[in-house]
C-alpha cells in the first residue's frame, strides 16, 4: 500500500508541498502568482507539480469539494468482520460506488469505511444493503461536529 517516490524530494519540492496544500489562487495565471511567492519560475513550478503527481507524492492537485455543503451526506461506518470472511466482505463493501475510503484497522471493528452520496437517503440505504449482504451489523458513526479540517502534512 505504500508507494515510494522514485525521485527524492529536495527542498524546493518540500517548499511547494508545505505552501500549496491550500490557497491556490483563482486568477488568470495562478501558477505564476504562486511561483513568484516561492521564488520559482512558472514553468518550473508546473513541471514540479506534474512530477510530484507522477511520483505519487501528491494524490491530486485542484479543488477539494465538501459534499455536505451541496446537499449530500457522509458517514463513517465500521464492521467487525470475521477473519476468514475478510476478503469476501471487503469485495462486498467496496462494490458500492458510495464507499469512498475503506481501511483495515487493528481492532475488533476491523473494517472502517466512509460512505458518501449526493443523496442523504442513499447513505442509509447503502448501510442497510451492506448489512443485508454481509449479515453483519454496521456501526454507523456520522459526524456530529467538526473541530478542524485541514491537511497539514509537513514534508
Amino acid at each position: 500500500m505504500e508507494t515510494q517516490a522514485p525521485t527524492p524530494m529536495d527542498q524546493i519540492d518540500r517548499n511547494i508541498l508545505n505552501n500549496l496544500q491550500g490557497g491556490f489562487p483563482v486568477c488568470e495565471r495562478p501558477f505564476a502568482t504562486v511561483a513568484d511567492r516561492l521564488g520559482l519560475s512558472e514553468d518550473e513550478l508546473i513541471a514540479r507539480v506534474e512530477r510530484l503527481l507522477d511520483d505519487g507524492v501528491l494524490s491530486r492537485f485542484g479543488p477539494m469539494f465538501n459534499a455536505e455543503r451541496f446537499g449530500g451526506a457522509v458517514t463513517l461506518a465500521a464492521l467487525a468482520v470475521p477473519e476468514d470472511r475478510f476478503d469476501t466482505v471487503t469485495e462486498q463493501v467496496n462494490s458500492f460506488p458510495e464507499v469512498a475510503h475503506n481501511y483495515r484497522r487493528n481492532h475488533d471493528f476491523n473494517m472502517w469505511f466512509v460512505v458518501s452520496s449526493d443523496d442523504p437517503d442513499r447513505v442509509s440505504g447503502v448501510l442497510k444493503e451492506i448489512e443485508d449482504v454481509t449479515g453483519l451489523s454496521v456501526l454507523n458513526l456520522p459526524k456530529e461536529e467538526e473541530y478542524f479540517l485541514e491537511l497539514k502534512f509537513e514534508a
Partner: protein
Amino acid sequence: MHGNISLDATDRRLIEATQTGLPLCPKPYHAVAETLGLTVDEVMYRLQRMQDLGIIRRIGAVPNHYAIGYRANGMSVWDVDDNQLSELGQNVGGLDFVSHCYRRPRRLPDWRYNLFAMVHGRDQDEVIVKVSQVRQLLGNACKDHQILYSSQILKKTGLRIRAAEGI
C-alpha cells in the same frame, strides 16, 4: 450544521470537470473554460463563489501521506465527558498534528468513544508521543482512549458526482 446550498447545472459541470484535478498549464481556468464552453470569467466567478460558500474547502495539493514519509496512520478515539466535548474538541482539532477531528455518537455497549482525532506519524512511536499530548490536553474529562492503526488501505477514491443526473 450548515444549511445546504443549491447549485445549478453549470456549477455541477464545473465540479465534475475539476474534481479529479486542475489542468497543469499556465492558465488552468482558461483550459477548464474552454472544455466546458464557458468564459474564463464565469469559471473563476463560480469557483470563487463555491469557495466562499465552503462548497470548495480549498484549492491546492493533496499529498499522499505515505509517500512523504507519514507511514503510521492512527485513528485515536476518545471517551470524553459530553459537557466538555465541544470546548475540548476545538483544542484537540487545533493541534498541528491532528488532521481531522470530529465528534461522533457513542453506540453503547459496542462503542463508547465520542471524539475522533486522526494522527499521522512517521512511525507508530511518533503517533504514540502525539497521542499522549492529546491525552494530556483532555485531562480528567477523558475516561478512556484507543489508537486504531490502519494496516491496509482497502479502497481510496475521492468524491465523484455525476453532473448529468442532475443530483
